[in-house]
């Protein structure tokens, strides 16, 4: 029993850490840019502090920046240091992890695009409502920092961004991130394996409430939350529960809650949380019927939440080997590299803290030195550069979309590999191999749709059906493999072969 608890906790912790690493790195550097390029006064100006537009701006900036609910913690801390109002910071912290360009595009293929856009607008409604009430209930006397922390232009300013990021990585942010990760890891220990498969069925009136309880400790990256939403729509699960998963699962984690408690005390946190839950649960029940995908035949379960439950099945003996296999199946190489860089950044932070207790480096960075400039060498103000860097990040995410969602030709080649592996695994009865490749195969069908949409700014209903039909058959195949229905597996494999051929023909030869 103790092995299940310890290994279950460790596996979920490491898995989420690896998934979060790229976003945490992004959050650390975004916080450093706010600190060093913008400074406190310009950060407040960027967010429209004190104006009616502050909450809307926080939502827009949050939506555009590539962070998750753990990566947003260093940014929220920096915004607090800059003197922003609590409502604005929380609006930003809650909306930033919900979407990014990659996940939003992915989301548009999952259900009716209107549902995903409605979810985005509802999130704006919630953060605006909760932020406004919070600021009214707890008006804060603005406390602006005396030290603006802006570094004069030159190489020192570039260096200071790195220094700032590594210091933050080894500071309080790390503790809150660890709390967030511990929350989702504990959930994996407490919930028995596959225990959430039927909990969010469309006919369960308590599905949104149950999801509320689960989603608070859950940590999901924007893309993971979106793919889980997709699975829920594919199975015609509760729409209200899906909405709650997005807002609370992707937007909140225990680390963020701990940070809010630490900075705004228990009373304010309880009020904020009550308001939030009231708004979210109310909206969830409100959208349950209007946004229900009526054209989909409801399934009586979903596998979307298996990853929040105990990862080891009864009878597991070699925990290390199983954990290694499971990690290998869900973690991408770029996440491993990001985790390595994050580890180095944290280590550098500790070295800096111990070797520079008198802040000599910080003082040296702040010391202005005359910089020689040429006749045509224009000095751009820090905030202008800061905006350019942030805009660059957003543009890079946009460009990244084309790489993440390649052209149909590239995808069809990759898909052929996934198809061969998935179908041969199914025929030979290799469950885990087949299941692993079915997920990859399914993912490529979604990337195919987005890839075409990105390049043509249009995706016909015909092409959407082609990809959708293949996914439905893959889903059926996964179940028949699980149930060891060999005859049905053989029939489905043959059927999928034809469906695949027709889909490839449609996307490569019949696109217009």
């Amino acid at each position, binding site marked *: 029993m103790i092995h299940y608890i310890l290994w279950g906790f460790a596996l979920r912790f490491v898995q989420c850490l690896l998934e979060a690493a790229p976003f945490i790195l992004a959050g650390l550097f975004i916080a450093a840019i706010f600190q060093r390029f913008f400074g406190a006064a310009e950060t407040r100006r960027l967010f429209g502090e004190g104006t009616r537009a502050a909450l809307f701006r926080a939502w827009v900036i949050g939506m555009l920046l590539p962070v998750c609910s753990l990566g947003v913690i260093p940014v929220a801390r920096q915004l607090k240091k800059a003197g922003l109002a609590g409502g604005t910071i929380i609006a930003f912290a809650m909306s930033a992890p919900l979407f990014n360009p990659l996940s939003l595009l992915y989301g548009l293929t999952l259900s009716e695009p209107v549902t995903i856009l409605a979810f985005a607008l509802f999130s704006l409604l919630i953060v605006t409502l909760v932020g406004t009430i919070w600021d009214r209930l707890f008006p804060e006397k603005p406390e602006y920092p005396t030290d603006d922390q802006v570094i004069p232009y030159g190489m020192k300013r570039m260096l200071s961004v790195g220094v700032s990021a590594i210091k933050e990585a080894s500071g309080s942010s790390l503790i809150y991130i660890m709390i967030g990760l511990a929350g989702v890891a504990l959930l994996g220990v407490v919930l028995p394996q596959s225990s959430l498969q039927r909990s969010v069925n469309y006919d369960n009136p308590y599905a949104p409430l149950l999801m509320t309880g689960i989603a608070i400790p859950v940590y999901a990256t924007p893309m993971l939350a979106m793919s889980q939403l997709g699975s829920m729509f594919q199975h015609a699960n509760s729409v209200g529960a899906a909405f709650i998963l997005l807002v609370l699962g992707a937007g909140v984690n225990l680390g963020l809650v701990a940070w809010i408690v630490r900075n705004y005390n228990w009373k304010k946190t309880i009020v904020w949380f009550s308001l939030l839950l009231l708004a979210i649960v109310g909206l969830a029940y409100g959208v349950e019927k209007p946004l229900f995908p009526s054209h989909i035949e409801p*399934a009586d379960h979903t596998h979307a939440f298996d990853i929040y439950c105990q990862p080891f099945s009864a009878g597991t003996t070699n925990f290390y080997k199983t954990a290694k296999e499971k990690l290998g199946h869900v973690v991408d190489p770029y996440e491993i590299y990001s985790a390595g860089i994050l580890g180095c950044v944290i280590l550098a932070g500790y070295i800096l803290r111990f070797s520079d207790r008198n802040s000599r480096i910080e003082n040296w960075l702040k010391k202005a030195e005359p910089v020689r400039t040429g006749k045509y060498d224009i000095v751009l103000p820090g905030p202008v550069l800061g905006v350019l860097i942030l805009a660059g990040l957003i543009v890079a995410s946009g460009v990244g979309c084309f790489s993440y969602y390649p052209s149909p030709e590239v995808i069809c080649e990759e898909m052929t590999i996934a198809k061969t592996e998935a179908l041969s695994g199914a025929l030979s009865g290799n469950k885990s191999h087949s299941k692993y490749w079915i997920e990859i195969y399914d993912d490529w069908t979604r990337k195919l749709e987005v890839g075409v949409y990105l390049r043509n700014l249009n995706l016909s209903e015909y092409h959407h*059906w082609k990809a959708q039909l293949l996914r439905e058959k893959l889903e*059926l195949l996964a179940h028949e493999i699980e149930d060891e229905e060999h005859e049905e597996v053989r029939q489905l494999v043959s059927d999928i072969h034809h469906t695949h051929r*027709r889909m490839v*023909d449609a996307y490569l030869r019949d696109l217009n």
Partner: protein
Amino acid sequence: MEDHHLEHHIPEHKPKSYAATVKELDTRMRWLLNHRQEQDAREKQQELGEIIAWIPELAADSELKHKDWDEVNLYAKELMTVFQQIDFADIDSSLVGRYFLLVVKLKQFTAPSEMKRFNG
């Protein structure tokens, strides 16, 4: 004992192919017209409505090309509108005629729906 088998429910009346769908559109409507008073007429009527709604999906799961599928999709939408207007208690023959005309139009795509156009 509780059944832990996780089901993906596929209705029994869902046709297996586009060709089978078109056939069902014809035979089921004829049955409904001749058995209006029967007990399960209401249920059969609902099933026919569902079959009409499945036309685009089943046509997409066939060998039909994009252009043909678009036409089938248009006919399917029109067929649904006509079907919803038919009052089986008081039959309007012009609507029924329109229904069967659309079924004939949909039948034209049966052959191409089963023809492999690419990759042999």
